[in-house]
């Protein structure tokens, strides 16, 4: 009997209580603007963007209580649910990070709330017209561009013996696919030839690297989330066979790749926050053209350079921003 009573009274009560708590905490205080950030999943790049945004917003005078971070933990159904909730929840501005979150956010917000997308490599997927710079109503944002040309040139400069470049990528990541296509067209002009293979998950990176290693002189890892997560597998194979690994992000160089011209994602996040600030101060999102952030942040790993016996010329040394 007691248990029955408990069920009848307690459960709705708990739900109501928690909802009440929510309301207390989330009531808008005066004219304070509310900023909602939503990210797709937790990983190094996305986390540094998120940190960069929050850091810069705090510097610009916003308070921590004004910023709310949602994380879909990699599930599309949660992306859909959370986006709907954010659009309904009185935010003054929404910052979706990654392409799927931005697509859903732009669609569901429907121009009612300003949306500043971040970390979307191909904004045309959001309905942005790149040639005229026209964005959907109340939408603007910033895209990260990996400088594939400079990265390939860097490989040739540091490792002149390189002819065949091995690239492993996950074809289900559109930004990665675009990158590989770009490399394929660029490579001949730099005197390189691309040898490609695809993987579907991080666990497939090791066998793919083993398969590829005999056909290439050097590995190059583009902006591919799956392969970057499994970069240690490539480095392991590369060390066994004495073939160097180049990358295009800071994290991979930290892990042991030779060098990369990366996007500084923390700085990228800070740039996103500056757009947000402009909009919150009254500028219309449609007056801010979609922006590009081209990677120019050269990082090297000195231990890896020694291991593969690669010497850095003075000119390159001058451009190095960070050494691990």
């Amino acid at each position, binding site marked *: 009997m007691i*248990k*029955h009573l*408990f*069920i009848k009274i*307690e*459960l709705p009560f708990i*739900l109501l209580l*928690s*909802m009440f*708590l*929510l*309301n207390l*905490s*989330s009531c808008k205080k005066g004219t304070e603007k509310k900023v909602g950030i939503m*990210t797709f999943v*937790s990983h190094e790049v996305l986390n540094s963007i998120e940190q960069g945004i929050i850091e810069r917003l705090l510097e610009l005078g916003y308070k921590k209580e004004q910023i*709310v*971070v*949602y*994380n879909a*933990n*990699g*599930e*599309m*159904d*949660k*992306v*859909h*649910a*959370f*986006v*709907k*909730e*954010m659009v*309904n*929840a*009185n935010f003054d501005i929404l910052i979706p990070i990654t*392409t*799927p979150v931005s*697509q*859903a956010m*732009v*669609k*569901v917000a*429907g121009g009612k709330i300003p949306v500043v997308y971040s970390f979307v490599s191909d904004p045309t*997927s*959001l*309905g942005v017209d790149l040639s005229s710079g026209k964005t*959907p109503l109340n939408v603007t944002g910033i895209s990260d561009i990996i400088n594939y040309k400079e990265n390939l040139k860097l490989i040739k400069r540091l490792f002149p013996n390189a002819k065949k470049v091995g690239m492993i990528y996950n*074809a*289900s*990541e*559109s930004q990665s*696919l675009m990158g590989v296509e770009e490399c394929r067209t660029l490579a001949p002009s730099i005197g390189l030839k691309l040898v490609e293979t695809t993987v*579907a998950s991080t666990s497939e990176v090791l066998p793919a690297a083993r398969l590829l290693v005999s056909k290439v002189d050097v590995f190059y890892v583009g902006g591919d989330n799956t392969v970057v997560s499994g970069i240690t597998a490539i480095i392991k194979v590369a060390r066994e066979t004495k073939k160097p690994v180049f990358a295009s992000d800071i994290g991979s160089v930290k892990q042991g790749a030779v060098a990369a011209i990366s996007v500084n994602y923390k700085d990228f996040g800070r740039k996103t926050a500056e757009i947000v600030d402009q909009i919150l101060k009254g500028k219309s999102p449609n007056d801010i053209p979609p922006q590009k952030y081209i990677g120019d942040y050269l990082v090297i790993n000195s231990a890896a350079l020694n291991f593969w016996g690669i010497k850095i010329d003075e000119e390159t040394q001058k451009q190095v921003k960070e050494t691990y």
Partner: protein
Amino acid sequence: MSEIRAILDSSILQGLGWGLATFGLNISLRIFRFPDLTVDGSFTLGAAVFSTLLVAGLNPAIALVISVFAGGVAGILTGFLNTVAKIGKLLSGILVMTALYSINFRILGNSPNQKILDLPTLISPIEKWDTVFSLPLIGVHIGLISFYTILWIIIAIFFSIVYKSELGLTFRYAGFDRHRADKMGFKSKYRIIIGIGVANAIVALSGIFIAQEIGFADINMGSGLIITALASLLIGEQVIKFLRKFRNIFLLSPISIILISIIGTFIYYLIIGVLLRLSAYNLIPLFNLQPTDLKLFSALIVIIVILLMSKRQIFMPREELL
């Protein structure tokens, strides 16, 4: 009050839209006793075929019919692998789901993602005039919710008629006991194949409407769907069992099967919504919740809800705990 509104509105819409997928799983799991893992793939398949046809310029209604049919074919394949090729239920689901990944990728035009943002869809006219209908406690998207309600009523009518008909009875019997059904002269094989096909067609239908709501189809749309749908299904069943204390409800009546799917999904997203806020606003300072802790807590809450609502029988009356 905006927070309650946001959670309720979102959860109701999720319950009605993603509830279709739960309904599909309910059919395969409870009626045909088939733990069908194909749903992860057939959900995406529905969305992928629909968006590709839409981009190709087809009428949305025709695109819908074709893509629902495509989802059905995926289910038929799983059923075929199980009943004819004698591959285990779980494995045949996994095989078809895995194969569908590559197929979906091709259907999406060798890209992981296809937008249908600016194209006219079945729900775009509704979305145009849809406004949030505000009440003191709740505010809901009246247009979309009415649309889904009508859709569900149509499904419920069809489902009830088929379910109670003589033909439906043979299908249910084939799902209940294959061998005895064979002995009684029904071909259980074909009935299971068609049943799993219908279940996956409904899952594909869910994918189609979600793609229209979010404005794109993505290769990873359906990954993890089986877990969400299963959790929703279990919660829904416990709620219906709980309601049985007050009224005599038959668990396997067509209406309760539909209600289980909608209410279960609704409550699942309600819980997730509340948890999301708790972690986002850091309302339990003791635990210092992070957004990534959400999965742990959603699992715990599902367990608690099921334990609280089951009347002393923690174990399901039916032998399968799936």
